[in-house]
């Protein structure tokens, strides 16, 4: 938080391609045990493992890039934030109607059987819904 004038170079990288790359003033994400965390320019070097979450990237031009990140890592330096994730989706790539339908189906399933897999899928679905502005 030392240099308020600085910008963060943000990159969201999946194994198959660079998903997003741009300049930002603030990035909010959620680590595995620590809860939500925000990074501003000048942040100390930081390395964290992420849960399924709704990550917000406040771009330099004032808009917000929402995305759903399903597990992964974040590496932060004073001038950059890198999110590594094998499954991340940009807000505009998410099909809201389909995701809501999935959520209902999963909740239905969970009522009858307990399974870690379904719970994880539900967490991913929640992250997607949050990223598209719902919930």
């Amino acid at each position, binding site marked *: 938080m030392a240099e308020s004038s600085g910008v963060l170079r943000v*990159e969201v*990288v*999946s*194994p*198959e*391609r*660079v998903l997003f790359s741009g300049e930002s003033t603030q990035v909010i994400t959620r*680590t*595995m*045990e*620590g809860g939500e*965390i925000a990074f501003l320019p000048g942040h*100390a*070097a*930081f*390395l*964290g*493992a992420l849960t399924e979450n709704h990550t917000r990237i406040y771009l330099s031009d004032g808009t917000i890039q929402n995305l759903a990140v399903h*597990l992964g*890592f974040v*590496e932060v330096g004073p001038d950059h934030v*890198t999110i*590594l994730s*094998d499954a991340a989706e940009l807000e505009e790539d998410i099909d809201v109607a389909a995701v809501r339908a999935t959520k209902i189906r999963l909740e239905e399933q969970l009522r009858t059987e307990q399974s870690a897999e379904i719970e994880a899928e539900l967490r991913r679905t929640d992250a997607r819904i949050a990223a598209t502005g719902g919930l």
Partner: protein
Amino acid sequence: MAGGQERILRGRIKSVQATKKITRAMELIAASRIVKAQQRVVAAVPYSDMITEVVRDLSAAGSSSSMPLLAGRSEVKNVCYVALTADRGLCGGYNTGVMRATEGEIKKDALEGRSHTVIAIGRKADGYFRFRGYNVAKSFTGFTDSPSYANAKEIGEFVTELYASGQVDRVELVYTRFISSGTQEVVQRPLVPLEAETVAGGDAKNAAGADYEFEPSPEAILETLLPRYVEARVYAAMLNAAASEHAFRQRAMKSATDNAEELINNLSRIMNRARQDSITTEIMEIVGGAEAMSSKN
């Protein structure tokens, strides 16, 4: 009689021409796929670079020694080879290159008293190693020409599990590295345990690594990170192999097309000669007949 030979030759030329059309089409398809495969190789670089960097930073923070994936075993009794080949043939020496290299290593290990395990990727490797009675732990097939990350994940998980359970003490990747569309080479790279030098690295960034804040603890991060790292390595190898496969296929099909062309040339030459021969003979017969008629008159 001579006309018969000409007809046979015409038939052969037609069939070679049909073959040429097929090989030409395969060549063009492979050529267009090389470009795409190459782009995928390049697109995967940022992720694997960064994940390597993060692993390096973490181990600089001094949390590496207790990790099973990082710690080597003092005695290596069983070596696992992950052989990456194609699902289909018609690609020159691509498959044999990888399989020979793997087989050579297995034999070398056998001389030194180590047993082997093979993980076959691609239908060709599966057939080859199973037929020859090697110990094939598992085969993954059906995606070698355009692998996805999910495939790499599946393989990575299987390898990690195999290593963690103590069934194998070392895992090696054997694949064809894509250098350019003209050059590819069969390489063997250690996958698990992760090499000390890969992880520690002689990079200048190393010094900064120790200053990181971690959340949760470095150990916990490393524990989730290392399997991802293995997957990323497998994925990179698979993309390289896919690009190489297309390059090999293009070259093989190009030479098949050239061959067919040469064959057609030769055959048409023979056919033309046969045709000329038969015409000459016919004229001779007519002339001879006419002469005989006129001399009779």
